[in-house]
């Protein structure tokens, strides 16, 4: 089994030209990627990190390319991250925010796809509230499509940036134990992460109250826990998830207070993980709901680095999918 390459010992020299052509047309789901493709994307992202850290944050391999960010639900972080990524690579980036579902305006997603396709973009980055919507759209356009989150299905670039962050901190990914905690049932981040970490031979745990665990999750994660302390025992990585406020107040859980008491990450619960465990969160955080502010800002937190790696990963994905170098 191939090992994930450790960035500290095998950092690619630069973003230009060291990578073979990427075989996928779109990035819709981690499930579509083979292990070597995941590692390839992580290596490409690693090579992009210095670009964002240098004074002149530009690596214009996508000059002349058009990127449309089509967001059917608001997402400041992901949309901004994709926008910066595209611009740093020299692409013309256009943001389209569709406040409500296009269907409510009498226009189907297919119509929207056809309209956008006529504008001849090179890549469309899509966020949609419905699982599978991005895939549906990808079937109707001629350009590359990147899934920036579709319902409770997947968020592949989030999983990639999480993996990159882990690899940079731990020097490896394979063989680690990662606990994902919180609203497992409604999280797209979970699905992408379980698929990606599973492909890289990571031991995965999910921890949540039983009613936030979806059916069959035991087939996707290595272990399932409903007790936070037991679930965090000896883990290398603690990945917290955002609790949607509408699920509190008696709907799915009795109260935020009770949730924090049993499932919020505080110092005591974190002490069950390995001493050098890192703490992650896809953001935006509910401080005092799923995570103690002191931990969010503490020495084990890599949350801000996740944001930075998000830009690198998105640059890597755009660069891999847009055939700047591998045009036939």
């Amino acid at each position, binding site marked *: 089994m191939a090992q994930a390459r450790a960035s500290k010992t095998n950092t690619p020299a630069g973003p230009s030209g060291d990578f073979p052509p990427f075989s996928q047309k779109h990035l819709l789901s981690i*499930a579509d990627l083979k292990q070597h493709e995941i590692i390839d994307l992580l290596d490409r992202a690693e090579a992009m990190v210095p670009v964002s850290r240098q004074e002149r944050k530009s690596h214009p391999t996508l000059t002349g390319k058009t990127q449309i960010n089509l967001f059917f639900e608001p997402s400041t972080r992901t949309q901004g991250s994709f926008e910066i990524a595209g611009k740093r690579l020299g692409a013309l980036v256009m943001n389209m925010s569709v406040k409500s*579902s296009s*269907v409510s305006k009498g226009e*189907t*997603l*297919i119509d929207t796809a056809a309209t956008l396709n006529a504008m001849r973009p090179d890549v469309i980055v899509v966020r*949609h509230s*419905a*699982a*599978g*919507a991005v*895939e*549906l759209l990808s079937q109707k356009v001629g350009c590359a499509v990147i899934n920036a989150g*579709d*319902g*409770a*299905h*997947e968020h592949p670039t989030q999983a990639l940036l999480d993996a990159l962050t882990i690899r940079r901190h731990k020097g490896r990914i394979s063989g680690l134990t990662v606990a994902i905690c919180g609203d497992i049932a409604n999280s*797209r981040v979970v*699905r992408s992460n379980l698929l990606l970490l599973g492909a890289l031979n990571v031991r995965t745990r999910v921890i949540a109250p039983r009613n936030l665990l*979806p*059916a*069959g*999750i035991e*087939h*996707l994660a290595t272990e399932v826990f409903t007790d936070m302390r037991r679930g965090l025992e000896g883990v290398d990585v603690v990945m917290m998830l955002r609790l949607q406020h509408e699920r509190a107040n008696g709907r799915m859980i009795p109260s935020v207070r009770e949730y924090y008491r049993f499932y919020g990450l505080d110092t005591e619960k974190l002490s069950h993980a390995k001493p050098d465990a890192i703490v992650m969160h896809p953001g935006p955080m509910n401080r005092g709901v799923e995570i103690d502010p002191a931990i969010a800002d503490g020495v084990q937190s890599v949350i801000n680095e996740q944001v930075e790696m998000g830009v690198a990963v998105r640059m890597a994905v755009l660069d891999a999918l847009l055939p700047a170098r591998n045009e036939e």
Partner: protein
Amino acid sequence: MTRPLLIENARIVDPASHTDAKGAVLVENGVIAHIAIGGPIGVPDDAVVINAKGLILAPGLIDMRVFTGEPGKEYRETLQSAGDAAAAGGVTSFVMMPDTAPVVDDGALVDFLIRRAKATSKVNVLPAGAITKGLAGQEMTEFGLLQEAGAVCLTDGRHSIQSTALLRTVMSYAANYGMTVVHHVSDTSLTGDGVMNEGLFATILGLKGIPREAETIPLARDLQLAALTGTRYHAAQISCAASIELMAAAKKRNPHVTAGVSINNLALNENDIGRYRTFFKLSTPLRSEDDRQAVIEGLRNGTIDTIHSDHDPQDTEVKRQPFAEASDGAIGLETLLAAALRLVHSGDVDLMTVLRAMTSRPADILGLASGRIAIGAPADLILFDLDYPWQVSEREIRSRSRNTSFEGARLAGKVMRTIVAGQTVHTHAED
């Protein structure tokens, strides 16, 4: 007067009389006049003779669950286009669900539909009357007047009555008229915003699941109410193993309860959804393969009484959407028989049992004279080739909508001739 019709050299398969033998049938004045098994048959000089060598002669199919677009959404389906599709599929009578605009909750509309169907449809259209006004699940309709106008049963179609008290009243009152209450069992508070079977596959797709208990809990309630009220009760379409167990137990105590299954739940499972294929988004949802096998066993052992198409025409606008936002439903009139014959060809269920579920059992439940090859019965008949191979092609679909779950499917078994009241309404044209 039309000329007598003789169908000879056929393999006659009639579940009502448990006949499976070579023979001939003579049709006069729209009814079956004579049946000859093996021996000779008296043939009037002017009879039209059909040599049915190699074909099966069976009663025309009775489909207990068909949605139409007319009235209100004729662009999806009219009574005429549904009739054309039915005739091509060997369905000589279908029960039309009341989920139209306006809702069929009034005797006058039933009367209109019957006359409209006679004028435009090739097959018998049997309107069902709504149980509640506007299908809102609040107030009962006029069961007696609906029956007088010609409604063959009572149902709220794809809607499920949530109030136990109302359902008790409905069943008690329907018993006055001997009308069968056909109920789609679904606890909407459990269904929630679920869009497919609850389980690992839904979790992988990130789609909200519908637990089996959304079906079994109201089914258990309904079966108790049916026993309490003594009404004739038909669970419209059940889909999972636990429902089969409930039905089997209830049938031991109460002969007036029956159950139907959609051909979709017999022929397909949740994995057919694949990567969000909305033609497989159905209500009741496709269940697991274990459930499908349990339903097949239920059909084999008599727990399941009827198979229907659940024909539900939906246009492109509402189907070509993200899975969770797409409408439920698939068409099925033209593929009902051939899809059901898959069970015969696979050896899971014998031909007699499969045909019974689409002929004599629905006729019994609805109190129809058709659905059998008997002297004096309406000459609603089909001739089909049990092994004829064909592939479902969107181009050849007669329905106005194209949302078939069997697009591209290779099927064996084709209706060669459909006869309604002694008149040929469809013949299969060889390519």
